[in-house]
């Protein structure tokens, strides 16, 4: 057999054993696919069940809840609790919700700005200072001041009971800076050089060339930072004594923890007030995160790639 013939034979072999063809042939693989589908359905159901349960409870009538109804379809459809939460001022849910929106907005904008002006210079391997700056930043991921030293510092800075006490401790996340840096590194150098030839200075290149090319990572970081601020309750517990400044997550924590004794309204209200408040707090996140899934998966991928 000549070499050429051999090669052709091999090629045929490869085509015949193309993974897709082979998969269709194998009976074992068919069984596996069925088995795999069942597992995926089980995982999805298990993931969604608590949310569906919560939603069902939030619409179920007080009577049914007291009787111990635990189904996934609301019984005795009831929107009174939602109406109470959203219209009555004495429960003040809306105020906490508004606080969260304000903190999330201001925090996310500032975090995005300061993280990117740190990540961009870090993405330039030729910048001399990076020899010192990279370890300086990254070390904080592995060792930190701990709760007490941070707490004492915040007291000293007079940040207790102010919005900044809530925002500043998490203003720049080192992990997110690293993700952004990886993305900036992937921007083609030619584009930036072209910008410089056209007369842009370094800041101009960052603002007019790198930033517009970075939609995926900016979308990802917006989501991550916004979720971080939206969900945070612990900084509020530490630094916000004034109830009027509480974010909704901390308010929820107090009513869930059954510190409800301080919350006469919550105690006397319908039994499903917690479910309603939780649903309202989760809702914006559920609406937003699937929309930018393709971006954050990409962003995480870049960050996971070792240089």
């Amino acid at each position, binding site marked *: 057999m000549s070499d050429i013939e051999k090669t052709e034979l*091999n090629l045929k*072999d*490869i085509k015949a*054993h*193309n993974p897709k063809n*082979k*998969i269709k042939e*194998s009976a074992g*693989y068919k069984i*596996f696919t069925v088995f*795999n589908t069942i597992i*995926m359905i089980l*995982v*999805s159901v298990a*993931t*969604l069940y608590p*949310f569906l*349960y*919560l939603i069902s409870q939030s619409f179920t009538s007080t009577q049914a809840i007291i009787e111990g109804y*635990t189904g996934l379809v609301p019984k005795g459809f009831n929107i009174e609790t939602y109406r109470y939460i959203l219209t009555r001022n004495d429960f003040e849910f809306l105020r906490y919700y508004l606080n969260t929106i304000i903190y999330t907005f201001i925090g996310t904008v500032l975090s995005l700005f300061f993280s990117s*002006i*740190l990540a*961009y210079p870090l993405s*330039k391997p030729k*910048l*001399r*200072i990076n020899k010192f700056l990279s370890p300086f930043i*990254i070390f*904080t991921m*592995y*060792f*930190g*001041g*701990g*709760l*007490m*030293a941070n707490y*004492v*510092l915040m007291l*000293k800075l007079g940040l207790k009971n102010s919005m900044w006490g809530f925002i*500043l401790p998490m203003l*720049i996340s080192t992990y997110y800076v690293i993700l952004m840096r990886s993305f900036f590194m992937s921007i083609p150098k030619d584009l930036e050089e072209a910008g410089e030839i056209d007369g842009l200075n*370094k800041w101009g290149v*960052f603002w007019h060339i790198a930033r517009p090319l970075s939609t995926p990572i900016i979308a990802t970081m917006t989501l991550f930072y916004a979720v971080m601020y939206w*969900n945070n*309750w*612990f900084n509020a517990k530490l630094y916000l004594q004034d109830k009027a400044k509480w974010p909704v*997550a*901390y308010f*929820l*924590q107090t009513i*869930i923890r059954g510190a409800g004794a301080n919350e006469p309204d919550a105690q006397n209200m319908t039994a499903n007030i917690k479910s309603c408040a*939780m649903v309202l707090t*989760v809702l914006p*996140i559920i609406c937003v*995160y699937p929309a930018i*899934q393709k971006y954050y*998966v990409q962003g*995480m991928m870049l960050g996971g*790639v070792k240089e």
Partner: protein
Amino acid sequence: MSVKEENIRLKQSEEWSPRKLTLGQRFNKDLHVNWQLYVMVIIPVIYYLVFRYVPMFGNILAFRKYTSGGSIFGEGPLTLKYFRQFITGKPFWQAFSNTLILNGLYLLFRFPLTLIFALLLNEIRNLHWKKFVQTVSYLPHFISMVIVCGMIKELLSTSGPINEVIAKLGGEKISFIAMAEWFRTIFVASGVWQSLGWGTILYLAAMSGINPSLYEAATVDGASHFQQVIHVTIPCILPTIATLLILDIGGLVGSGGAFEKVYLLYSPLTYETSDIVSTYVFRMGIESGSINFATAVGMFEGVINLVLLTIANFVSRKVADTSLW
């Protein structure tokens, strides 16, 4: 000019290339060209100094007395008495062993399950179905721990659905949240529930980067589908597995995400299995006001954490040729 002379001239001019400059000169040149980049990092660097490095040095409160309103670096002579206090106390060791047990169990279950889930996801051929499962499985990652724990409490309450099933099967209702013997199960199960999907992202990314010709070659060699997973997929994502494992082992003693969940779920009834170092620090430091004592405990945890991470990193570099630094 002869060629020789030209060469000499070139050599001389090479001496002016950046390589021959002193460190200071090179830095000045860099500063001149890139000064705007240097200006950009000023505020973030100040932020890191104030909010990350000052507290790091603030750990000195583990050795010096802090008085309310006084210096954040403490006052007076250095002392080891705070360390002696917690090292000799029983609650610390209970919290320390709980931290190890909870994190260890969590790692033991979550790590293989996540890997298996990623491998299974990778086998789904229908892209819409795959994307749907992924989207659903990412959901818990974005939910506040307050809500997660709120849901856990609702589901496990004596009037919740799980107890209803138990009652229907003729069993006795269990108040899970108030029982120390259930805490570990609840902690691990809810942790897996929350992190299973998100944990697969890096694995899936690594898998999508595998060269398809490797699978073709394996097929030609007669490898079954399962054998391909064992001999192609897993070896190719080994660096990712190693990196994630280092991070996890480094976090074994750390509070990480455990603090919030334990704090939100525990009660004095369950301290015996639920109290971890970081919740102990919180109780002692913030609730009881023993700032020095709590700093010492927290610092002890941080240092052990760093040591563990360094060891894991070293081992991984030797064994799997992957390391964080």
